[in-house]
């Protein structure tokens, strides 16, 4: 029996496997949309509670459930409070993390790293929500256009156009804010700060 069938049938063990496999992926997507570790943890938890609630809607056929989970996560990130209420205000029972260090303190050691990351963050924040969602799914989570379209319940053409607009805006915005630097240095700076889509997809 496939994991789809098992989860659809209410198999909690199979659902736990699903969490193990995709929790980090969902968290990454949630963090990109919320920009906040605590909010991303809320979205992660609620996404899996929603997935369990909606398990009977899983089609028998099909590939990985990751695009489906990321679609749920996108909806939850849009309205976390509503999702929490659906689960009897589950967030009130969610164990809170200990003090979370700011990422700039945790990872970024050099001032130019911090400045560049902040510029990227600001640029991403200027996108419309729908553009952020598409860019995060396709570039951040590595979904194909058709997968992103299904996850967001929009057409492939809309995915392409939103992605194109997002890319244009981001490139223009980052170019405006960031002074040009030698290519080698930019590449070198990028490694610790931004995980590749391939890495994310493991």
């Amino acid at each position, binding site marked *: 029996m496939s994991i789809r069938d098992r989860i659809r049938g209410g198999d909690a063990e199979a659902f736990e496997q699903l969490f193990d496999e995709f*929790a980090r992926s969902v*968290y990454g997507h949630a*963090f990109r949309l919320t920009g906040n570790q605590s909010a991303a943890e809320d979205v*992660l938890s609620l996404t899996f*509670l929603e997935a369990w609630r909606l398990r009977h809607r899983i089609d028998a056929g099909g590939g990985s459930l990751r695009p489906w989970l990321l679609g749920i996560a996108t909806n939850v990130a849009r309205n976390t409070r509503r999702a929490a209420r659906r689960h009897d205000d589950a967030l009130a*029972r969610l164990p809170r993390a200990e003090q979370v260090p700011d*990422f700039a303190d945790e990872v970024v050691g050099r001032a130019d790293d911090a400045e560049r990351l902040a510029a990227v963050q600001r640029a991403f924040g200027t996108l419309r929500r729908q553009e952020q969602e598409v*860019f995060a799914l396709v570039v951040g989570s590595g979904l194909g256009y058709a997968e992103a379209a299904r996850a967001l319940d929009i057409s492939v053409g809309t995915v392409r156009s939103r992605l194109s607009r997002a890319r244009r805006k981001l490139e223009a915005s980052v170019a405006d804010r960031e002074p040009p630097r030698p290519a080698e240095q930019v590449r070198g700076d*990028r490694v610790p700060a931004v995980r590749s889509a391939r890495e994310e997809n493991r």
Partner: protein
Amino acid sequence: MNAGEREELARLLPYQPELPGDRCRQLKEFVMSEIKPAKRKRRLPRPAVLAPVLAAAAAVAITLPLLSGGAAYAVTKKADGTIHITIDEAKNPEGLEADLRGMGLNAVVDYIPMGKKCSPQPRSESFLSEEEAPLTLWPVPEEGQVGFTIDPRVVKDGQTAVLEFSVSDTPGATVAGIWARVSTGPVAACRLVDSTGAPLGPSGG
């Protein structure tokens, strides 16, 4: 988009930290404890547990006030096989879905606030007409109680009852209307979108 393009565009993504392993395990334990019925909050016996009682008192309607989420709704399986639903609070649709399934009805339940409607519409490409599958029975009020009566027998194996309830935003008010159809195929999840029209069903009616 190929891997090279994606790699190139990744530089435009905000930084995203790793979720620490300990925290990930903690969140998994939380999720698993929330979904396991044994750890749920107060819940009266499931309909399946009550089956012998139903058999012994077939002429008596059994009311199951379902208290998870704070007495949000009640469902009554009546002697004639129909199900009466009363909603006091528009929350815990998953509980209502589960309890309807416990009564043998595979159902999808969504609450639609004022100014919203479900997207996409229609949520299935294979809805049966009201004539083919008369799911909702009228009139619905019973002994002064507002509610809705549905006939689960029109939903055959492999089919899904799609129930959308419109929710008033007036304090103290709850569900104002129901749209109910039977789908013979997959049903799209309800994503609430802004709407100036009526909140229920494909045509707003």
